[in-house]
C-alpha cells in the first residue's frame, strides 16, 4: 500500500496547486489519496457499465435496427444516425393506433399494478405497524416470519397457490363446505382477481419490510404526545403517524410496483393469455423469429414508463435525506 501520506488535512489548509494529485478527503477527515475511493468503486462501476448500461444501448440498437433477411434474427444497428424508427412506430401503433390489439394488455397492466400495489399497502401497512410498534418481546419472531417469504422462491410460492386453486383444490373445497360456492370455481382460467391476488401475495413482503423499518425509526414520543393531548387513535394516526411514515410508504410502493410492471411469470402460472400483461408482450416477442426490433421497442417503452416514477422517488428520497440531516 502506498506509504505516501500527504500533508495534514487542516480544514483551512491552503489550496493545492491545480492538477496536483495530492489531495485529501475533507469529508471523511482521514487521509486517503485521491485515487483511493475511485479505485474502490472502479471494478463495480466498470461491471455495471458493461453489463447493465451497455446492454441497454444494445436494446436501443435492436429496437431501431433491422432484421436479418434470411432468418429474421434481430440485427442491431449501433450507429444512431442509421437508426430506423419504423419498428418503434409500429409498436406504438399497436398500442394506440387503429389495430391496437396490444392496448388491452397495457391498460390491464396499469390496472393490475395499481390494484395490487394498493392492496399490498392496505394489507401490509397494518402488519408492519403492528410489528413495529407492538412487537415487543416477540419482534424477532415476527420479523423472521415476515422475512421468510424472501427465502422461499417466488416461483414456489406461486406454484403453491396453483395447487390450492385447481378445481379439486383446497380453496374450492373450503368454499364448498362454507356454502359460499357450491360449484367449483375455475380460478386458473384467466381471472383478473386471481392474477391480482397472486401479485399481492408475491410482492407484499417487499413492501412490509421498508414500511416496518420506517415505522420502527419513528419517534414514538410524538405519538404519545398526540394521545396525551386528547386526539383519538384515528386522529393520531392521520396527523402524526401517516406523515412520518410517508417516506417509508413511498419506498415500499416503489419497490413493489416497479418490478410488477415487468412481471410475466405470475400471469403465465396463474392466468391465461386473456390476462396478459406488458411483460408477457415482451416475453412473447423476444422468443419469436423476426420480432427482435419489436421486443427492443417494448423494452424501451417499459423503461421510459418506469423512469418517471423512479426519478420522482429518487428525488424525494434525496430531499427527505437532506431534510433530516
Amino acid at each position, binding site marked *: 500500500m502506498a506509504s505516501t501520506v500527504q500533508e495534514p488535512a487542516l480544514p483551512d489548509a491552503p489550496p493545492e496547486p491545480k492538477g496536483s494529485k495530492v489531495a485529501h478527503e475533507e*469529508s*471523511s477527515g*482521514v487521509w486517503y489519496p485521491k485515487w483511493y475511493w475511485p479505485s474502490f468503486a472502479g471494478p463495480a462501476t466498470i461491471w455495471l457499465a458493461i453489463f447493465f448500461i451497455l446492454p441497454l444501448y*444494445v436494446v436501443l440498437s435492436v429496437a431501431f435496427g433491422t432484421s436479418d433477411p434470411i432468418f429474421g434474427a434481430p440485427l442491431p444497428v449501433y450507429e444512431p444516425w442509421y437508426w430506423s424508427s419504423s419498428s418503434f412506430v409500429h409498436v406504438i401503433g399497436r398500442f394506440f393506433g387503429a389495430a391496437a390489439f396490444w392496448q388491452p394488455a397495457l391498460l390491464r397492466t396499469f390496472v393490475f399494478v395499481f390494484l395490487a400495489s394498493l392492496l399490498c399497502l392496505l394489507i401490509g401497512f397494518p402488519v408492519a405497524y403492528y410489528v413495529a410498534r407492538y412487537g415487543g418481546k416477540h419482534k424477532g419472531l415476527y420479523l423472521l416470519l415476515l422475512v421468510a417469504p424472501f427465502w*422461499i422462491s417466488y*416461483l414456489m410460492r406461486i406454484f403453491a397457490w396453483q395447487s390450492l386453486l385447481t378445481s379439486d383444490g383446497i380453496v374450492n373445497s373450503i368454499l364448498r363446505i362454507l356454502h359460499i360456492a357450491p360449484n367449483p370455481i375455475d380460478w386458473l382460467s384467466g381471472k383478473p382477481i386471481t392474477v391480482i391476488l397472486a401479485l399481492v401475495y408475491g410482492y407484499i413482503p417487499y413492501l412490509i419490510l421498508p414500511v416496518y423499518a420506517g415505522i420502527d425509526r419513528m419517534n414514538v414520543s410524538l405519538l404519545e404526545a398526540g394521545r396525551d393531548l386528547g386526539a383519538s387513535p384515528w386522529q393520531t394516526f392521520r396527523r402524526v403517524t401517516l406523515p412520518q411514515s410517508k417516506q417509508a410508504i413511498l419506498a415500499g410502493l416503489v419497490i413493489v410496483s416497479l418490478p410488477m410492471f415487468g412481471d410475466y*411469470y405470475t400471469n403465465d402460472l396463474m392466468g391465461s393469455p386473456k390476462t396478459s400483461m406488458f411483460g408477457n408482450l415482451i416475453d412473447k416477442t423476444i422468443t419469436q423469429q423476426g420480432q427482435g426490433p419489436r421486443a427492443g421497442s417494448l423494452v424501451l417503452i417499459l423503461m421510459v414508463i418506469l423512469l418517471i416514477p423512479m426519478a420522482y422517488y429518487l428525488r424525494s428520497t434525496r430531499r427527505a435525506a437532506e431534510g433530516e440531516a
Partner: protein
Amino acid sequence: MSEIAIERGAERSTERGSGLGRWLRNPWRRPVFLAGFTWAYLAWSILPVLIAILFSFNAGRSRSVWQGFSMRWWTGDPNDALFHDPALRQAIVQSLRLSFITMIIAVPLGTMFAIALDRWHGRPAKTANFGMLFSFVMPEIILGVSLYLLFTNLFKGFVHLGTGAQLLGLITFQLSYPVIIVRARLLTIGPEYEEAAMDLGATPGQALWRALLPLLFPAIFASFAITFADTIDDFVTVNYLASTAASQPLSVKIYSAARGSPTPAVNAAATFMLISTMMAIGVGFLIYRVFSRGQRSGEAGAGVTDFVNA
C-alpha cells in the same frame, strides 16, 4: 410503544361510557384487531408453502388432493422421484453452482462499491449511486432481455449463452443487494475507527482492512446469505440466458413443469431448494452472531432485527 403507557391506559379506561364503546375509544388499549390481522396475514403468507411441502409427500399423483403419505416423489418412484431423475438432480446442482459463484463475486464487488460510495462524495459517485439504485428496482425482464440481446449480438463470439452468461447476468442483478446492505451499516459507522488506526500509524489500506472491515462483517455475512438465497430463486435472468438443458437451474424446471402437468416431484424439488436456502441463511446468521458478539445490544431478539436491518 412503552409497556407503561399501555398499563396506564388500562387504568384510564375506567373513566366513562359503556364497556365496548369505552374499550374501542381507549387509545392505550392493546391492539387486538391489529394483532389478529397480523396473524391472519402471517398464516396466509406461510400456510400455502407448508401445504405445498406437505404435498410433496403425497402418495398419489395429485398436488391438490391428499392421497396418503409416501416418500415416493423423494426417493421411492424409480422414474419420477426427485433423487432418481437425473434432469432434476442436474438442475439442483446448477442452482447451487450459480448461487455459490454469484455470491462470492457479487458480495466483495458490492462491498467495495458500498465503501467507496459512502466515502467518496464526487459527482461520479452520485451517478454510480443512481445507476445502482436503478438496477435494484428495475424489473428483471429488462435486464434479462437486454443481456440476452447483448450476448447474442454484440458479444456473439465471446460469450455463449449458458452458465457463463447466466453468471454474468446474475452478478449484475445481485450487485445492488450487498451495496445497499453494507451501506446501511456504514452509515452507522463513523470514520473514527479508521482515523484512530491511522493516527496509530496504519496505512490507509491497513486501516480499512483491520479497522473497518471487521465492523462490517455482520453486514457482509448478511449480504452473502441474502445474495445466495436470492440467486437460488432467480428465474427471469437464468431463463433467458440458458442454453441447453444442462444450464437450466431448478427454478426454470419448476416453471416449465408448472406450465405442463406437474407431479409432486416438483414440490419435492422446490422443498429441497427451500431447505438449502434455509441452511444457508442459518449458517449466515450463526456466523453473524459469532462475529457481532461484541457489538450487539442486550435486548432479546435484537440479533434478528440487527440481522434484518443490517
